């Protein structure tokens, strides 16, 4: 057995050797010589590396500045999103990528939880608070209004000036997002801005 052990271990390096070859080929074909952003874009299947999302992050970060606080809220579940899973947690990606700009959400403890908690967090928005306006039974309206009041008071207390809404979906399209600025003169307290125009005003030199 003693004499067999090393040859056996050597034989089983075949798989990692195969991986080393595959990885090296892929690296030189897809990423070698590219900057970090281009390398990230080449990694398919990573939601927060999608090019359109990276553009949003880069410009929004510069436009809002490091001291800003942004309230992020799902607006609705996209019609073509059959099974909203973990890959649709754009609020989480934004909290990381916009940092040090602070990102705020409703029920942060639930939002920070696991994939088991995520459906409950979505239910809070679409069942309890009816943020998508899809309607609810009469008996739940009282609860909805109380929750909304509580949340609006918390938003006011934190002095959140900006709000970004997005659809729950795996795909990311800038056109689906909406940006609002706090404005008490407007019904609901949020005035919608032209997101694209807002982003275009980001100083080019800073990008």
């Amino acid at each position, binding site marked *: 057995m003693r004499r067999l052990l*090393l040859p056996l271990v*050597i034989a089983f*390096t075949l798989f*990692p050797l195969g991986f080393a070859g595959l990885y090296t080929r892929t690296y030189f074909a897809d990423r070698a010589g590219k900057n970090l952003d281009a390398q990230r874009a080449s990694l398919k299947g990573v939601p927060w590396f999608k090019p359109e999302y990276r553009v949003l992050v880069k410009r929004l970060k510069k436009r809002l500045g490091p001291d800003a606080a942004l309230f992020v809220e799902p607006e609705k579940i996209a019609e073509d999103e059959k099974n909203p899973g973990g890959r649709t947690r754009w609020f989480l990606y934004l909290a990381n990528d916009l940092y040090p700009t602070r990102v*705020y959400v409703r029920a942060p403890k639930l939002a920070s939880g696991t994939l088991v908690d995520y459906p409950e967090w979505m239910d809070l928005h679409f069942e309890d608070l009816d943020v998508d306006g899809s309607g609810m039974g009469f008996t739940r309206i009282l609860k909805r209004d109380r929750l909304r009041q509580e949340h609006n008071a918390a938003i006011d207390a934190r002095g959140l000036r900006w709000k970004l809404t997005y659809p729950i979906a795996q795909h990311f399209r800038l056109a689906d997002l909406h940006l609002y600025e706090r404005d008490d003169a407007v019904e609901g307290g949020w005035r919608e801005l032209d997101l694209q125009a807002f982003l275009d005003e980001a100083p080019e030199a800073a990008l």
Partner: protein
Amino acid sequence: MITLATLIAALAIWGLGRIVLSQAAPSQRTRLEVHSLAVLVGFALWACLIMAAGLALPIANLGRGLGIGLATTAGLAGAALTWRTKTAPIAQPKTPWTWPERLAAGLALFFCAFSLFYASTMPIHIFDPVFHFAYKGKLLFHEGLMQAGWTDVEGPIGRVITHPDYPPGVGAIESLVSLIAGDFAADEARPLFALFVLATGGLLFARLRETSRRAALTGALLWLASPFLFYSRLPHQNWLKGAYALFFGPAAGKDQFGITMGPAGPLPGEWTMPDGWTLDGAGDLPLAALFSAGALLLFGVMTSAGSRRRGDTLLAGLLLGGGALMKNEGLALLPVALLAAGLGWLLTQETARPTIAKTLRTLGTTLGLALVVAGPWLAVRHSVPTIGEDYPSRLTPSGLVEAATSTQPIRVSMTTGAVEQQLVPRIVAGGFFDAVTHTPRFGLLWLLFFGALGFAALRPRQRFRGLTAATSLAVLGAFALYALVLVVTPWNLDALFKTAIPDRLIFHVAPLAIFALVTIFEGEGASETAD
């Protein structure tokens, strides 16, 4: 990616560790052991220092100049000490190199180089390294430890932070690199993760070299070529198709075999690029490296009467404490290491082991030092919000009974996706069995380890002596601990298993398992002439 900041940080890590090693009998160690331990101790101490500083102020506020100054001073001091100190010569082999040894040496060097290449050329991209670890590095760097970003998860509106109760040791290492770079730069810290692989390989080689060159090469290669360092799954669920895709690429595999059809049409994500959990920047690899090194040194002291290497107790404490900064499991494994050390002492011949007074002093010193190093985190841990996971409160007799009799749905067929309701202990046992027998993920590591235990059971007095026994028992203890934790976890086990659990957990003791299996098969402390 490797930048100047990466290189300066690497020098600082090695340098600080080398300064500490100067107090731990470097002349009684081989050069490989000195440098391997220096790197690991440096990681533990920098993580501790950065987190301690983070308690007072954001790391960025220390200033880039101070960061570069401290880092280069540590590096230069380490270099000066190396220049002045002689190390123990490697015993000349009495047997000529055999062809398997030459091949193994070449492969070990190849995988050292590939680890560095891999860690340097892939941006951090897996969910856990980004959100559970690097995000905490950002908070540490810009806000300091335990500021609003860590705790503002209560109430109707607040900020998100996944697993706020995970210790930010990995984030601290990323903050060190960022301090030198002048801005937060987790991707520049990623290449440093390869040093955990190299240092662990170096330590295994150095310690097993006392048995024989063949033992040393076997242990080092088992570690350095562990598939789980690089990927957790093959590019296809089917073993043969996965192997084909590994050598010829997923696209070629798809051309050759087509797309597998499930009951609802083509199965999604069938052909993929293999993914990597451990070298991508999560805490599992640092914990595996630091815990295993610390435990190995502690077991050596506890099972040997002579003080072969002065200072091993000091280093063991620092390393075990560093492990507790990388993941909570590091703290949970600390009593496992102490218990295994005690059992190892009992299983060592009375004439060959230290006195009981010295033994107790060793255990006390190790525990004390580990708690000091983990101190910056332990000091604030109680005030961190816990989200969903509060294992100590669940690991009660009533909690265990309740969990052991509950059931969960578990996927029983990868192809059809069929789900079955099963008892939780059965699901957990199945998860461990799958992990241990997952040869594409771990090669022969676990099969050899359990095979070695069976081999040792045939002649336990000869093959299951002090150091080997302590190391094996630590591995088994970790398995038992993690099995208990999985039985009471509030997580859905099916969802957990999809994220390479329990494989990532048992990986924490993989270096110890390698040491144990090689010493069981090759003999503990045998000489080259035994060939």
